């Protein structure tokens, strides 16, 4: 298991968190083709290198955040609040 820094709670064991997955733009459900929607659902970049992904602080602040992690070394170079998390808190 790895240590992942939550922007609010600091470094946490990944067992305290939930891995949501690779960040990718979500098409508008009402204005998208079937192909675009299924590509969004299933297809992943799955890089062996730097990736941007979403995590959820399950056992801590229960907020979503974005992490930049290297999938081969598990090194983490950035962690920031998720845009939609901030939007929902400010609305």
């Amino acid at each position: 298991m790895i240590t992942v820094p939550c922007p609010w709670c600091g470094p946490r064991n990944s067992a305290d968190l939930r891995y949501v997955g690779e960040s990718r733009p979500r098409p508008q459900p009402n204005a998208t083709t079937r192909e675009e929607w299924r590509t969004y659902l299933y297809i992943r970049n799955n890089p062996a290198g730097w990736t941007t992904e979403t995590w959820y602080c399950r056992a801590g602040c229960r907020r979503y955040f974005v992490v930049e992690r290297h999938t081969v070394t598990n090194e983490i170079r950035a962690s920031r609040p998720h845009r939609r998390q901030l939007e929902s808190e400010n609305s």
Partner: protein
Amino acid sequence: MSTNGLPAKFSAWNLFRRGLTGESWPPVWRSHDLEGSYDVVVIGAGVHGLATAYYLAKNHGINRVAVLDKGYVGGGGSGRNTAIVRSNYLTAEGVQFYDRSVKLYQSLAVDLNFNVMFSRRGHLTLAHNDGSLRTMRWRAEVNKLQGIDSEVIGPDEIKALVPEMDTSTSARYPILGALYHPPGGIVRHDAVNWGYARAADARGVHIHQNTEVIDIETSGDRVTAVKTNRGSIATPVVVNCTAGWATTIADMVGVRLPIITHPLQAAVTEPVKFFLHAVVVSGSLHVYVSQTERGELVFGASVDPYASYSMRGSLEFTEELAGHVLELIPSISKMRLLRQWAGLCDMTPDYSPIMGFTAVGGFLVDVGWGTYGFKAGPVAGEAMAEAIATNKTPEIISSFGLDRFQSGQLVGEKGAASVGH
């Protein structure tokens, strides 16, 4: 040379003769210079890649085949799995497919002239709650309809098969029943890799270890060449058998895959006297246990819960695993773990593989094997060889095409693929 084309056939007579004469055995497979062109290039020298090459040569007479690997034969998932074979899946497509593989494994030692140590054990998938017991009944009925020996049994029958199991109702997660699959068993995974490598080599296939694919060249919408760190190879057909690294190869020709690479950890104990006949799996406790012919207990678990290409083990895994194993078999609490390791699993959304042709001509995939790749090695190789030789998708893999993620016809095997995803 013996009559079947294999050099230095393994037999009691040959063992006796070489014992007396002191004549040494030839290498199990040979090294070759990289040729400028091959009819087929297989990427990945694991059980899938080697089996594909072997059946291309054996069943279809295509032996100008190169099997490339950036590491060594069987160094990836093929040498890191827990070597269980079974066919008690959840969908009719899955059951038929894995049943063919179990049948091939049963006669593989004779076919390859290499002892793969196939051991029929009986396979128990435990149910600790009503939900999983219902899935077991579902699987048993699907299995029976396909002619597979598979049935739901109760705690008393489980106790008779594995007396060491704690089947009491006072256990933390009491065992309510199990799906019992008598044909299930274990195989020596390294022997399968080496056996396929040896038999493919004997039929003219070139196995190139330490040969990393850097790029795949296309012209129009067809594959034309593979660039490696040892030089370029012209070829009309490339097969991607790289499991956890499948995406990195598919990216070279612009084929996008619905795959997420997760590590999966496993461990073995010190060897002890043989006591555990059956293969025991518990989805709720995220663990599977079997005892090898050498006496070691092999433990596997569910995949690590995040995408990674790192193959490092973790203490949490060992702690959790040991705790869960002891809930099932308390009497082994004094045993010590010898070692632990991790392999990479190429997980798909529906827990079924992705096999066959892609939008790029001559680029085939045999990927998405998740946690069930080893048990499918022989049938996957046989089917991929047929697809290449006939240029048509064989019936047995017709449900596993990459296009199913656009058509929406997924083959949901989550309930039977492995433990606790």
